[in-house]
């Protein structure tokens, strides 16, 4: 039986995916799509969905795992947004070539400009030649419905193309509305299980994908194009079949009071609801207007739009994206529409409006004035003055006051981190120790979002810094160091700052390579044992048994595998300095920061610092206990303070008598799922670890920078 509930777009997407019964889900947290896979992880743990959920270490691997699973014949789902989609890019192109009907929900978000977490379509428009079908939903209901339909279209042998189901980030993903949730049996009848015939990696049915001979490449591309054309009729057929079963009809476009309208407003995504109100008001004022919403951007509905615009005088196209470098400074829908209408004998005047970039609201009044402005223009074939921008260069000021009391501080007060933040305590002392001859780069994470204040972009840290992409802490720091050296500024210390997710997972490749090349940078990892900035998802550094939103309590209790020991891995790179530290031992931390600074100032290679920084929000403990918990981690022997200098490992602190591990675990809500037997086993592991300490596993190595051979 259909259930009705008030839910967010992300939850609607998760229900759509759940009802489609994917067998494999691989995903990586990224705002604003994270909620989708959090809900799915929860469905799986609560027994509402049978699927293998793979919390991978990057979006590149998310799409990689999806492609692998689809190649083995499984139905596959993932979700991402913005930078995540961009990081998937090369695998995204693989999916259409292998004809893998993967369905991916996108919560549309601005792609690097240089950074924004708000909604526009720049992320998916960057993939609009990738051979993926792109369907854009107007509301949460349509998100749910479209995901189910997407599998039916994508898996049809006439199509066999991967499909993106796009919803506006935050505007749909994070707002709640009334949504009808169909029952599983009815959806099962509508959408039968995936039965691939074209390509399966299976010893019982041997097929292999080869690097095609040259002429085949064109044939493959041509085939994808044919499939894309077939998808046009399939999307409509599946849409009306869906209507017969569920009572909601969908097509390539949606017309709203558009029959024979003299003036047309063309929209896509969530803005349409507001635009429809504008149409009603303009009609009430006597204006002959209608609206066309584009639902399928790929394939683009050329024929339908030609029909709609055949007798139209003026068209206003609203784009939530910009295509840079095309003559008229227009958006993606604008350019597609113009080429679609080229074949018409009599073409309407088309005005493009770039609006709603980075989530800016587009109110009813804006739609009305856009439509009026477009209607007032004479038909023209030129495009020079056909593009208008809303909102450019309008920023609201924020009241920020310089405080003399903090003049000597590197990290000022007023950082927007949570109360009781361990990261802030660590970074505050580390930067103060390094001094002002320091430049740093960081990646999306708690440090990055909290140390930059809101508009008009006043930094709360007195050091030059720039935010870069999630996988790029060490590579960007490498470049900064090289650039400063090229400019004769050898004395400037360069710091790469990232959390555990940005270090042990997505950033590890760049970090490992920077270490092995001997780049003289300080890499500072604040360890809070999960992706906290996106809302507590499991990272490679999440400990055994810990709850996160992607390792929820259900059939299993929290994470079931062990955390990656990154400081040890870094020591195995034979770099001059590796140290662990804790926010409960500040003098030890600052001493280690000084040592790291000395190493890089002597140009001896990479200095790696790994600092335990408890997180009250994610670990589920009162904000006052941050330091206490950090101290208990050391006193119980779980977190070992040590340093490895030129391969020689040395304990920084040996607890006289180790406290029982349970003292540390019981204070934190995230460990509530651990059984007594598991706690005992973990205690034994800690005991065993201390038997092999002090560390002997890192053989000393010759320092080629300072010693004679």
């Amino acid at each position, binding site marked *: 039986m259909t259930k009705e509930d008030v839910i967010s777009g992300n939850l609607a997407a998760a229900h759509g995916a759940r009802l489609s019964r994917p067998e494999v889900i691989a995903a990586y947290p990224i705002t604003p799509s994270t909620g989708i896979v959090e809900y799915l992880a929860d469905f799986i743990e609560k027994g509402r969905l049978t699927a293998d959920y793979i919390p991978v270490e990057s979006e590149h691997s998310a799409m990689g795992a999806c492609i692998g699973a689809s190649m083995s014949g499984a139905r596959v789902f993932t979700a991402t947004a913005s930078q995540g989609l961009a990081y998937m890019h090369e695998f995204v192109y693989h999916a259409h070539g292998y004809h893998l009907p993967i369905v991916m929900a996108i919560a549309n978000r601005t792609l690097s400009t240089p950074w924004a977490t708000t909604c526009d379509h720049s992320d998916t428009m960057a993939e609009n030649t990738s051979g993926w079908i792109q369907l854009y939903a107007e509301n949460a209901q349509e998100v749910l419905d479209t995901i189910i339909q997407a599998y039916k279209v994508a898996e049809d042998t006439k199509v066999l193309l991967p499909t993106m189901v796009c919803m506006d980030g935050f505007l749909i993903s994070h707002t709640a509305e009334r949504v009808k949730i169909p029952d599983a049996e009815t959806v099962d009848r509508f959408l039968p299980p995936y039965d691939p015939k074209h390509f399966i990696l299976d010893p019982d049915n041997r097929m292999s994908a080869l690097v095609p001979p040259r002429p085949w490449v064109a044939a493959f591309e041509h085939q994808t194009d044919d499939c894309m054309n077939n998808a046009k009729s399939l999307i409509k057929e599946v849409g009306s079949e869906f209507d017969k079963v569920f009572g909601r009809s969908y097509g390539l476009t949606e017309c709203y009071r558009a029959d024979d309208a003299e003036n047309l407003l063309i929209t896509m995504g969530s803005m349409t609801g507001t635009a429809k109100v504008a149409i009603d008001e303009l009609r009430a004022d006597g204006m002959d207007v209608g609206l066309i919403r584009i639902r399928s951007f790929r394939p683009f509905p050329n024929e339908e739009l030609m029909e709609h615009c055949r007798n139209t005088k003026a068209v206003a196209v609203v784009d939530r994206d910009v295509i840079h470098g095309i003559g008229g400074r227009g958006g993606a829908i604008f350019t597609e529409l113009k080429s679609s209408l080229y074949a018409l004998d009599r073409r309407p005047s088309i005005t493009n409006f770039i609006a709603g970039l980075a989530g800016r609201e587009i109110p009813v009044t804006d739609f009305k004035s856009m439509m009026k402005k477009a209607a007032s223009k004479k038909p023209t074939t030129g495009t020079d003055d056909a593009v208008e921008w809303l909102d450019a260069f309008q920023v609201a000021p924020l009241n920020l006051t310089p405080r003399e009391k903090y003049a000597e501080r590197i990290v000022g007060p*007023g950082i927007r981190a949570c109360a009781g933040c361990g990261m802030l305590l660590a970074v505050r002392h580390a930067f103060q120790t390094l001094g002002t001859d320091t430049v740093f780069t960081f990646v999306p994470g708690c440090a990055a979002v909290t140390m930059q204040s809101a508009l008009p972009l006043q*930094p709360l840290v007195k050091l030059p810094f720039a935010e870069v992409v999630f996988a790029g802490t060490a590579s960007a720091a490498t470049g900064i160091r090289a650039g400063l050296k090229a400019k004769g500024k050898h004395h400037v210390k360069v710091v790469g700052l990232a959390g555990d997710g940005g270090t042990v997972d997505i950033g590890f490749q760049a970090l490992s390579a920077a270490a092995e090349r001997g780049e003289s940078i300080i890499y500072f990892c604040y360890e809070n044992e999960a992706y906290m900035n996106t809302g507590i998802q499991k990272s490679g550094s999440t400990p055994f048994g810990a709850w996160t939103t992607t390792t929820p309590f259900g059939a299993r209790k929290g994470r079931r595998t062990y955390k990656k020991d990154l400081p040890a891995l870094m020591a195995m790179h034979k770099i001059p300095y590796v140290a662990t530290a804790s926010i409960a031992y500040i003098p030890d931390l600052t001493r280690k920061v000084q040592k790291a600074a000395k190493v890089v100032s002597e140009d001896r290679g990479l200095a790696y610092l790994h600092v335990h920084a408890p997180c009250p929000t994610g670990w589920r403990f009162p904000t006052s206990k941050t330091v206490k918990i950090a101290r208990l981690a050391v006193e119980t022997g779980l977190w070992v303070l040590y340093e490895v200098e030129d391969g020689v490992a040395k304990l920084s602190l040996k607890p006289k008598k180790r406290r029982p591990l349970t003292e540390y675990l019981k204070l934190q809500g995230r460990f509530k799922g651990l059984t007594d037997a598991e706690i005992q086993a973990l205690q034994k592991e800690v005991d065993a670890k201390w038997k092999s300490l002090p560390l002997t596993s890192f053989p000393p190595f010759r320092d080629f920078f300072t010693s004679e051979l």
Partner: protein
Amino acid sequence: MKLPLVPHGVTVQCAETGSWRTFKPLQKKELCTKCGLCVTFCPDGVIHMTKQGIEIDYQFCKGCGVCAEECPAKAIEMELEQVEE
């Protein structure tokens, strides 16, 4: 050319976070030994050591309570913030 780059360096700009507070740290001056642990461990760095003892900057203090928890002399107490009428 406009870019989101901001020249800075003389003083640190501040956005007040005192309004976040639910509990307010209050010091009992007579118990304070001026050990400075609260100054060190305040995540936001808004406790200052003066000749008269510690000074909590309530314009920025978020009320996390780490200072009260860590104070060996129990010289800081957390009190529920009063709502201003």
